[in-house]
């Protein structure tokens, strides 16, 4: 996995029966999460059955590409060549839907809990597109 430009990023399985639609939406430039068709409950991580109303009918709905920062860690001890330290893993509460999604930033950015975050779509090798998160630029 190590080429002249350094190790390539860890790629997700993006065609899994249960979770593939998350990555398919990302390839279209959309952030989508699974919901119960009958009662609207967010089902994340994805599942085939709604524990609230008992429905087996689900669909993938586009959710806001905005959220707020719940917590983060600055990783300084390297455990995988694909992720050179330091880097920062963020956990974002997506606006309006209650989902928590993970993102990654290089280095050690200045961050604060609750600050606004926005999704962006990171194009990796082999056509994989990863929804990722970054702070909303101050001027917006």
């Amino acid at each position, binding site marked *: *996995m190590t080429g002249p430009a350094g190790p390539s*990023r*860890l*790629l*997700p*399985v*993006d*065609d*899994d029966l*249960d*979770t593939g639609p*998350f*990555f398919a939406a990302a390839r279209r430039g959309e952030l989508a999460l699974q919901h119960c068709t009958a009662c609207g409950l967010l089902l*994340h*991580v994805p*599942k085939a059955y709604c*524990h609230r109303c008992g429905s087996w009918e689900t669909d993938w709905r586009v959710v806001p590409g905005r959220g707020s920062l*719940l*917590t*983060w*860690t*600055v*990783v*300084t*001890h390297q*455990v*995988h060549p*694909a*992720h050179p330290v330091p*880097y920062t*893993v963020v*956990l974002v509460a997506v606006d309006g839907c*209650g*989902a*928590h*999604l*993970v*993102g*990654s930033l290089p280095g050690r950015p200045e961050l604060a*809990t609750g600050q606004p975050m926005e999704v962006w779509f990171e194009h*990796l090798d082999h056509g994989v597109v*990863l929804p*990722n998160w970054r702070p909303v630029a101050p001027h917006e």
Partner: protein
Amino acid sequence: MDGIVRCSHDTVYAHDLAHAIGVPQLTFWSDVGPGGVAPAAMVGQAVAAILSGQAETVVVFRELNGRSGRRYGLADAAGDRVGGAGTYDEFFLPYGLLTPGQVFAMLARRHMAEFGTEPEHLGHIALTCRERANANPAAQMHERTMTMDDYLGSRPIAEPLRLFDFCLETDGACAVVVTSTERARDLRRPPALIRAVAQASIPDPQPGMMYPILMRDSLTELPAAAVARTLWSRAGLGPGDVDVAQLYDCFTITVLLQLEDWGFCAKGEGGPFAASGNLGPGGSLPINTAGGHLSEGYVHGMNHVLEGVRQIRGTSTSQVPGAETCLVATTPLPPGSGLLLRSDG
């Protein structure tokens, strides 16, 4: 001996151990997981087997070569792709979220943001365990003392956690023998009676091994809160009845969260509680009296069960005088289990 309970992460199977120690015939065996949340539940399986007549005497064991063999906490990302097939790793590993320490670091940061918890608060937990290890000749850190400056000066691993917030890598093995109270009273050593055992998931469990717990609404509560409710109710006892506790300590923050979730202090007050001398000898809640994972060794919580038995028998190297009730809390993530030991009579 006719029964064996094994941790489902162990490399030794029940029949391996039965062969090694010459058990004539097994009538019961059981696998309990996952890893660090298994130990109290493993004892619970032995209790269930004995009470239901499936076995008379059960060995509950855990071994691992965490230093020389399979090292825990490495990224589980050997293939070209990560995730799929019900692991849900695809939502986490591609972002560089790769280890338990990084997950607990995110919980620690959130606790700091919500409640003003400080690194020194975590440091007191690390120091408490180290001091108990200094008294325990069998502990890995027996001869290595630590000051708060040592703690604060240790290198960051996954901020806000640093080296001395992390447990050790250990080659080790532990086992306890569980049998009926009647039979135990007949043996040479005084029994540690099992007052109650409990297992509990978090409410609305998430799948996967660890990372999906970050999907929960609360990032500052462990499954310990649910285990505690069940264990206290079954035991007819509460936090105020505990003389000494062995709290699972994969990381210092794990202990801090459990102090709150088990009801030894209010939610958010684990830091000041830890820093006020409560956890040492003579404190309101002496913990991890053999040194814990942080300084004795990492045997996935089974060493906490052993130390619980020692406290009840009065044989700990940091014995709590007159200890009659010991909590063993193996309640990190994703679910958890707890065990309450009592002296006989």
